[in-house]
């Protein structure tokens, strides 16, 4: 049975960009291990030569001309931002 150790749990949280306090990592690792081992049943299935499913009924994706169809609404786009200044989204300093 696969288990997710503390190091893996820490790495997954980091990849997901979710801060998890050190003290909570053991419980997280346990929960994730439980779910992952539930998924192990899939190893019983023979999937040789099977293509992953792509759509419900065979359908061609629609195409359209590659032209601008929308835009010119900077105010609307920024209206929900936690911090917007001078027409831009503002974030903490990224580059020193």
């Amino acid at each position, binding site marked *: 049975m696969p288990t997710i150790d503390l190091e893996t749990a820490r790495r*997954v949280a980091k990849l997901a960009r979710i801060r998890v306090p050190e003290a909570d990592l053991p419980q997280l690792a346990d*929960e994730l291990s439980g779910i992952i081992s539930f998924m192990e049943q899939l190893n019983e*299935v023979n*999937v040789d030569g*099977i293509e992953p499913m792509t759509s*419900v009924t065979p359908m061609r994706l629609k195409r359209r001309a590659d032209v601008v169809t929308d835009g010119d609404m900077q105010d609307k786009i920024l209206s929900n931002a936690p911090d917007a200044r001078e027409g831009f989204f503002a974030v903490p300093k990224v580059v020193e």
Partner: protein
Amino acid sequence: MKLNALNIADARDALRKRDVTSVELTQACLTAIDQADTLNAFAHKTPEVAMDRARAADQRIQAGDAPGLCGIPLGIKDLFCTEGVPSQAASNILKGFKPEYESTVSAKLRDAGSVMLGKLNMDEFAMGSSNETACYGDVVNPWKVDDRRLTPGGSSGGSAAAVAADLCLGATGTDTGGSIRQPAAFTGIVGIKPTYGRCSRWGIIAFASSLDQAGPMTRTVRDAAIMLGAMSGHDPKDSTSADIPVPDFEAALTGDIKGRKIGIPREYRMDGMPAEIEKLWADGTAMLKDAGAEIVDISLPHTKYALPTYYVIAPAEASSNLARYDGVRYGHRAKLDAGDGITEMYEKTRAEGFGPEVQRRVMIGTYVLSAGFYDAYYNRARKVRALIKHDFDEVFAAGVDAILTPATPSSAFGLGEMADADPVAMYLNDVFTVTVNLAGLPGIALPTGLDSAGLPLGLQLIGRPWGEADLLNTAYVLETAAGFVSKPDKWW
């Protein structure tokens, strides 16, 4: 009868005959909503929007321009973006978010003249089967048989409770693994998840894009047909929405299913299935047979792999879809300490904004998509998904028109009763519904009986791709035969 307790079809006919106005219907619903705060079904009430739309609808009806839903008061699940009205998927991470646009489905309902009463509570980001993960608090099922408060199911728990408690005439739901059908079954109402691609997903806050579909939740099959017609149709803004005609679903309700083949899948007879569910299923089968359908035993051999497949694919897609909540463009941003950079901003914002179940699923999704595990979990699950769909293809190719199954493994359970169970135990709620999402098929849940405690139980019918009209007609026959008329006693 109270106006808020009318069915959509009856209200429509009364509006057209000028026996009632939309303003009167809407006021009745708004009053009922204000008296039902205990149920916590409505997360954001929009009485001003509702009264404006009701007055406009009355004018339209006066002018003789009245589509089926004109003047009908509806509730909208919080997952739908609604212009200028809070839309936060029951998550703190979208606190304060007021979209500048309207989702295609809610826009279609608005343009048909329907009246939005408010936004309905739900599980956070539609992740849950008991409506206990919402930032707004739990929704309470209007059905009550003892001291316990029961779950309405999830994730569309607010929609289900609101329809069952007569707070609105119908509501929108969304269904990724059973989120329309399971709460419909727990509250004694009708809910249909249409074929993937029937309703546009544009403007619906994404959970798992290859599985998500919107659908109506109503008190009757006819109402579901009326509402689904208004919600369906091609949308250039959703590349997966199907460009095929939308039939007149209501006209398909002929009540004639003579000669139709109904499949009973043996794999859905789970170990330890409660006798009451077995009986419900057998009774439903007998009703369809009496109506002239031919009953056949069928096999869907990969059924047992549907839940693990779902719990790889849905979190994988969720981890990708929810990457956008980073504190930059909308919603919550964490307060930062001196020296915090952008990574700390992301990590603190997401830790504060997402609840535990959402965090868990995002991390599971991150894990199954991470280097070294992608093939072992994600690609394998996508292949098993193809096999699950193939099972259905074979059955339909053999001439089966619809498949009858239970909707849920039990009736509604008490809020908090699953708190100490492991997450997988909660996932088992979706065991009968999740196959339908994986295969992209239409599925409808409808109430056909009560358990010994007096709580509603539902059956599910699964149809062919794009066969909603036929499916609704079969459901209509079952609804008529079952004659389910029970309503929860008003205790709230």
